[in-house]
C-alpha cells in the first residue's frame, strides 16, 4: 500500500520533512517511486507567485522541442529552477533535465479570466505530454502558478538525496509526498502520485476496484484534461476537479459523490433533495474502495477522506499553524513530534477532515450531520 505524507503549514518548510515521514513509514512502500507536489512556493519561487511553473523531466531532444513549443505558444521564460542532481548508489542513471521553469503568460492572456488561463495552461501541458510521451523525451507533471512537482523512480530518501533536496532552499507551505507501492502497473512516471489538474491535487492509497467505470465516465465528459489514467488513482483527482471546478459543488460534496450515503441516511440531511439527485447523476463516480484520499484545492485547503471499507484510516494531527495528514501514525510522529497526540484525528467513514490555508485549525465535517 502506498504511503502518503501531506503537511500544510502557516510558514514555509522543506519537503525533507515529508520525505523523512515517508521514511518512517517505509514498511509500507517498496521504494518504487517518489512523487512530490509543492504548493504556495517559497525559497527561490517566493517572488514569482503569479507566474505558472512548468514541472517535468526531459531529454536533450525533448528540451529543444519544449523550448520551441513554448516560444511558439507565446510563453516567455522567466526563470529556471533545477534540482542539483547528485549520483546516488542504487538509483537509476539521471535523466538529462529535471526542471521547474517559470513562465510569463502570452501577452494576449495576461488579462484573461483565471478560468481561461487555467485552460490554456492545461492544454499546453497536455500538448507537451503528448509530444514527448511515446519516446519519453518529455514528461510534464504540472503547469500552474505557485505549484511545483517532482517525480522519480526509486526509494524516497534516495530520490530526495538524488535531487539534493536536503541541501536545497526549496520550500513551500503545502507539500504532498507519496512513497509508491507499485501494484498493478509497471513503474512509470505518469503513474506516480500526487496527480494534479488546474489547481486540484490528490494522492491515494488502496486499489480502486471501480476504476474502469469511473474512467469511462470521466473520459465521457470530453474534458481535455481527463486523460492519462496510468494509475487507477488518477481518477480521484479528476473527480475532485469535476465536482469542484466543473460543477461548482462545495468541497464537502466531493465526499458525497465518492462515498454516497444510503437512502435512509440521506433522509437525515437537510439538503436531501439535491443529495438524492447528485447520488443518481454521479452514480458511476462512487468509489468502491478501500481508499484514503488526501487532496488540496486551488485555494490551498487540504482534506482527507476515506470510504467505509478502509480498514486502517489515515491520521491528521499537529499544532496551530502546522498540520500533517498521513497514512500512518508514525509518519505524523516524524513530521510533528511535539503535538498533543490525544488530539489526533482518525477520520471515520463519514468524516471529511478539512484544514484551511494557513493551517490554523482542523475541522471535521460529518457527512451524516452535514
Amino acid at each position, binding site marked *: 500500500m502506498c504511503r502518503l505524507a501531506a503537511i500544510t503549514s502557516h510558514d514555509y518548510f522543506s519537503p525533507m520533512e515529508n520525505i523523512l515521514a515517508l521514511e518512517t513509514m517505509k514498511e509500507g512502500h517498496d521504494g518504487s517511486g517518489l512523487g512530490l507536489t509543492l504548493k504556495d512556493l517559497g525559497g527561490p519561487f517566493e517572488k514569482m507567485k503569479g507566474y505558472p511553473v512548468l514541472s517535468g523531466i526531459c531529454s536533450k531532444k525533448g528540451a529543444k522541442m519544449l523550448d520551441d513549443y513554448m516560444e511558439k505558444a507565446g510563453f516567455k521564460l522567466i526563470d529556471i529552477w533545477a534540482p542539483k542532481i547528485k549520483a546516488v548508489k542504487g538509483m537509476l542513471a539521471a535523466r538529462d533535465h529535471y526542471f521547474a521553469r517559470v513562465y510569463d503568460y502570452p501577452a494576449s492572456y495576461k488579462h484573461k479570466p483565471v478560468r481561461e488561463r487555467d485552460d490554456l495552461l492545461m492544454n499546453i501541458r497536455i500538448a507537451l505530454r503528448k509530444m514527448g510521451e511515446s519516446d519519453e523525451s518529455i514528461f510534464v507533471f504540472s503547469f500552474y502558478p505557485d505549484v511545483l512537482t517532482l517525480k522519480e523512480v526509486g526509494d524516497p530518501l534516495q530520490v530526495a538525496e538524488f535531487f539534493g533536496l536536503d541541501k536545497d532552499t526549496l520550500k513551500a507551505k503545502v507539500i504532498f509526498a507519496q512513497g509508491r507501492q507499485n501494484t498493478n502497473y509497471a513503474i512509470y512516471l505518469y503513474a506516480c502520485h500526487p496527480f494534479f489538474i488546474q489547481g486540484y491535487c490528490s494522492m491515494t492509497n488502496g486499489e480502486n476496484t471501480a476504476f*474502469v467505470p469511473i474512467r469511462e465516465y470521466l473520459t*465521457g465528459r470530453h474534458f481535455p484534461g481527463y486523460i492519462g489514467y496510468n494509475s487507477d488513482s488518477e481518477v480521484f483527482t479528476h473527480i475532485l476537479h469535476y465536482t469542484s471546478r466543473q460543477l461548482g459543488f462545495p468541497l464537502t460534496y466531493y465526499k458525497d459523490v465518492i462515498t454516497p450515503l444510503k437512502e435512509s441516511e440521506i433522509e437525515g440531511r437537510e439538503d436531501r433533495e439535491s443529495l438524492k439527485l447528485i447520488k443518481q447523476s454521479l452514480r*458511476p463516480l462512487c468509489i468502491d474502495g478501500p481508499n484514503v484520499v488526501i487532496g488540496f484545492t486551488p485555494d490551498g485547503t487540504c482534506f482527507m477522506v476515506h470510504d467505509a*471499507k478502509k480498514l486502517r484510516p489515515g491520521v491528521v494531527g499537529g499544532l496551530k499553524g502546522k498540520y500533517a495528514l498521513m497514512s500512518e501514525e508514525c509518519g505524523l510522529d516524524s513530521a510533528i513530534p511535539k503535538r498533543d497526540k490525544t488530539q489526533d484525528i482518525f477520520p471515520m467513514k463519514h468524516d471529511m477532515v478539512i484544514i484551511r490555508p494557513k493551517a490554523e485549525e482542523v475541522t471535521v465535517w460529518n457527512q451524516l450531520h452535514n
Partner: protein
Amino acid sequence: MEPATQLDYNHQLSLRELPYIIRWRDDRCKRCGSCTAVCPVKAIEPAVKVQRVVQSEGPVPTPTASRKIVHVVEQVTDIERYCTGCGTCTLVCPNEAIEPEYNPQNKFLHFKNRGGEGYKRGGRRNDPSVSTLDRLKFTRISMLTDPALDAGRHEFRVRTLLGRILPADELPLKKVNGNLVVTHENGKFIPPVREIFPIMIGSMSIGALSPPMWEGLAMGVTYLNEVEGLPVVMATGEGGVPPRLLKSKYLKYFILQIASGYFGWDEIIHSIPHMVEDPAAIEIKYGQGAKPGDGGLLMAQKVLKLIASIRGVPQFVDLASPPTHQTKYSIEEAVAKMIQSMSMAWGFRVPVYPKISGTKTARAVLNNLARNPYAAALSIDGEDGGTGAAYNVSLDKMGHPIASNIRECYLDLVKQGKQNELPLIAAGGVGKKGNLAANAAALIMLGASVVSIGKYIMQATANCLGDEFNRCNLCNTGKCPRGITTQDPKLYRRLDSDKVAERVVEVFKSSNVELKKIFAPMGRSTELPIGMSDGLSIDDKAMAERLEISYAC
C-alpha cells in the same frame, strides 16, 4: 421374403422421426391408464394386441403355442400428436413404467408443417449449446493488493436505477450557505427514477399465464418488497391487470406494458383517477426477442371470461396484436409521442421506456432515445427470450444475442458520456442453464443496469417443463401440463399460487446472496458494477474482442 404390402402407399412416419420416443415397460405397467389420460397431446394410447405365446408346462418340454390378448401403451406416429417429451406421463405413473426419451436423430421439423402451416410453439430458442453469457467468467479477484470483501459481513447495496437520470451539469442546483439545494425556478423537468433490485421479472401477460401463475408471481414480488425489503419489480405484459391491483397500493411494484394491441388499456386508463399509487414504470413493447418483428397472439382457447373482461374483448376469439404499433410512423415522431403521452397520463411521475428485440439496429434506436429527454430506459430482449406463442422459425432463427447487443449499446453511450443517463435493460436467455445471478452479473458488467427474466422464473417457480430440446413447449395451445400457461381450470388447479410465490421469494433472495458472492471477491459492494468490464473474461479471442473484454483460458 414376405411381400411388404404394408409399405405400399404408406405415408406413416416411424417413431424415429419424432423428437421423443416413449419407453414403456410392460413388466412394470399395471394398466391404470393414468398416463394416457393425462398426456396433453394424446401421444400415447392404450392398445389391444394379439400376442403369440409359446408355453411349456410339465416335467418334459411340450411347447404349445397359444394366442393371447394383451393391453399395451403405445405411442402414435401422427405428427399432430407427437410426444413433446413433457414427462407428464412419468409424473403420474405409479410404477415408473413410462418415460419419454429424447431422439437426437429426429426429423421432426421436416414434417411439422401439415396443412401448409408453419410449426408454432411456445418456449425459447431450441439451442442447448452453452450461451455466451455462460462462457463469461469473473476473473478480476481482489487478492492481497486490496482486500476482498466478505459477502456475509459487509454491507452491500445491490440496487439499480430505473428511469432517466439527469447529467450532473444539468441538475437544477444552487448554492445556499455552502449547501446545494434544488431550485425550481427555471422549471427544469426532473425525470422520475426508481431504485430497484437489478433483476426484474419481464413481461408475461395475464392472458398468457394462468391465474394462479400470475397471482403467484405478483404475490411473491409484493412479499419481497413489503416483507423482505427487496425492491423487485415485475412487468405485466400486454393485456391489462386485474382491476383490483390497479387500485391497490401494490401497483407500485408493477410495470404496466402497452403493446400494439393496446389490450387492457381501456380499463387501465379509466382506473387512473382511482389509483392510489403510480405503477413502477410503463413499458412500451415494440418487439420481443423470441419473435422479432412479430406481433403477439393469444389463441382463442385461452380467451376465457376473466381474460376477455380484463382485455375488453369477446370470449373465445384469437387476440392478435399487430407486429407494429399502428400509430407508429417513425421513431422521431410516433415513439416520442407515445412516450410523452404515457408520461403525461401519469403527470410525468412514471418512467416510460420502450422494449425492443435484440437487433443490429438497436444502436440507432438507442441514439434516438438518448436524445429524447423523456425516454426512461431501453429494454433489449435478446434472441434467447421466451414467448407464449410464436412460429418456430421466428423463435429459432430470428433475433440477436443479448451479450454483444447490450455491450455495443453501452459502449455507444460511453462514447457520448451518457451511460448513466439512459439505463439499459437486458433480457433474453438469462439463467438459461440455471446460472441466474452469474448471467445477470455478467450482463451488468457488460453495461446493463437491469436484467429481466421470464422463462427462468417459470421454470424455477412453477416447474415449467420446457427446455432447449423442444421439450413440452405447448404454451401456445392452452394445454400446459403444469397449469402455467393455460386458462383451463382443470389444468391450472395443478398449480398452487402460494407455492409459486414462495419460490419467487426464494429465487430472489438466493440471487441476492449470489450476486454478493460474485461482487464481494471483486471488491465491489457500494454501487452496482455497471460496465466494470475489466472484471470479465471469456475463453474465446473473437468474443473477447467483440465484447471488448479480456481473453482468459
